[in-house]
């Protein structure tokens, strides 16, 4: 990627020798990459809402949005414009600086996670060695946005929603982290690109098959981590109006909304990268059907991401909401022991079978 841009620049202004100029060009390339990733990801987020409404409508024997644009395709933009021009209301007793800051923390932490995701071979804004840990770190920072919005609104519904969300996110973060340890053991790395490459070398081509326990735990923990049904207790409308963002309106509300869907996109991407092989497909498939190897990697990656997004919507329209004590029971008494057992099992097999 960088080589292409470099050769393009050299074509126009000749060999770059000045080190400061070289650094400037590097920074410029990174800025372009960031802009491209953010714009593309936000477009995906916009259409994820449309996708969700259509899928849920079909599952509930409705037809979903149809009015704006052909088959309702411009609906996300109409929603965005509406939210942008809505009045921004701030409660009189709100703690103003924190009330302003909370949605920014929530949205920014979700967007920052995008920087370490390798969308296709050799493309990630920051290809760092601790990519997986970085995603955990950012998702735990997102919890601050939720707690602070709940506290600063000075409303009991928002406050209860914030408290519920914080304890839920902390509890399920443990299960999620432990469920990925099996993948780390098998791949021998925390770098997301390395994990995908290790999967491609592996006979099954996907860690979801040997790591089925980890995959199961991860999918459930990801639902809870992004506050989605059936674990959306923090925004349970029958108990808490809208939970932590009850007092938010206009574009500040939109930031929570976008942050939640970006979070879903990131969790789906992590599942696709760590368990489903990312931008690669299993080698036995390309051996049987060689023409499939000409399909660009980003296509496979997006197909996998949308498969998991569909799973999110499917679960949402199928299951009723859990009770809060049931949610904590599942997290601490089922998922964490399962994930721990998976780590022990994977480590044993790794030691006994050398070629794994």
């Amino acid at each position, binding site marked *: 990627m960088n080589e292409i841009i470099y050769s393009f620049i050299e074509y126009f202004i000749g060999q770059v020798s000045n080190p400061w100029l070289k650094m400037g060009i590097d920074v410029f390339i990174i800025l372009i990459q960031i802009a491209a990733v953010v714009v593309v990801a936000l477009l995906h987020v916009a259409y994820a809402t449309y996708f969700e409404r259509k899928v849920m409508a079909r599952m509930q024997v409705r037809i979903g949005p149809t009015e704006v644009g052909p088959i309702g395709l411009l609906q996300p933009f109409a929603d965005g414009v509406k939210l942008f021009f809505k009045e921004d209301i701030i409660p009189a007793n709100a703690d103003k600086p*924190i009330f302003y800051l909370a949605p920014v923390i929530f949205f920014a932490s979700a967007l920052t996670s995008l920087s370490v995701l390798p969308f296709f071979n050799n493309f990630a804004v920051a290809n760092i060695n601790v990519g997986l840990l970085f995603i955990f770190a950012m998702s*735990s920072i997102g919890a601050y946005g939720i707690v602070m919005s709940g506290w600063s609104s000075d409303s009991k519904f928002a406050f209860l929603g914030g*408290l519920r969300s914080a304890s839920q996110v*902390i509890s399920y973060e443990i299960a999620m982290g432990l469920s990925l340890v099996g993948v780390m053991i098998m791949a021998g790395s*925390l770098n997301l690109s390395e994990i995908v490459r290790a999967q491609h070398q592996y006979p099954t081509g996907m860690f979801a098959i040997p790591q089925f326990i980890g995959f199961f735990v991860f999918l459930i923990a990801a639902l809870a981590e992004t506050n989605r049904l059936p674990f959306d207790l923090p925004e349970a409308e029958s108990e808490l109006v809208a939970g932590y963002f009850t007092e938010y309106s206009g574009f500040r509300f939109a930031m929570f909304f976008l942050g939640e869907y970006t979070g879903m996109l990131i969790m789906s991407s992590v599942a696709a990268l760590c368990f489903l092989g990312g931008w690669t497909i299993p080698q036995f498939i390309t051996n049987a059907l060689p023409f499939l190897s000409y399909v660009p990697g980003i296509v496979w990656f997006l197909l996998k991401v949308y498969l998991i997004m569909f799973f999110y919507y499917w679960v949402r329209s199928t299951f009723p909401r859990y009770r809060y004590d049931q949610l904590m029971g599942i997290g601490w008494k089922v998922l964490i022991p399962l994930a721990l057992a998976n780590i022990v099992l994977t480590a044993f097999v790794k030691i006994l079978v050398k070629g794994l």
Partner: protein
Amino acid sequence: MLAKLFFGYYAVVIIFLSLLVITRKNPVHSVMWMLLLFFHIAGLYLFLNAEFIAAIQVIVYAGAILVLFLFVVLLLNLREELQVERFVGSWPAGLIIAVAIFAIVVNVIRSFVLAPPGKYSIEYIKEATHTKALGTILYTEYLFPFEIASLVLLIAIIGAIVLAKRKTRSH
């Protein structure tokens, strides 16, 4: 030059943020400044090529410990108590202890000798990746202290559960 500039920035900002944390009247604002402080400490680790420690700093301190602080602060509902006098009566004793510790630290630093560079040079860590180098050394050379540390943490966890557990039957 650039390295010194970075270190200077982090050092100054960390001191400034620590002061902000202990001088805010509102404990929730203190926690928010502390969050920023933890990010700067993580940045300092990154600057020292310790990427694993930097990530763990954010996950453990900012993501878990500070959220628990926040819980305590929120559940106490300190909004009404913000008018209370800020300093406790025993501050002269605290000041004397602080000055004494500062004097000791200044005196100790003078006898500080830089150790000869060992096996774990920056090149070695870049080659082996920081996580792997740290894991190998923790589980081979420092296995015993590592296990003792984890045992101490386990005892703390069990202790907390014993303290918090409601007695269902009275003996």
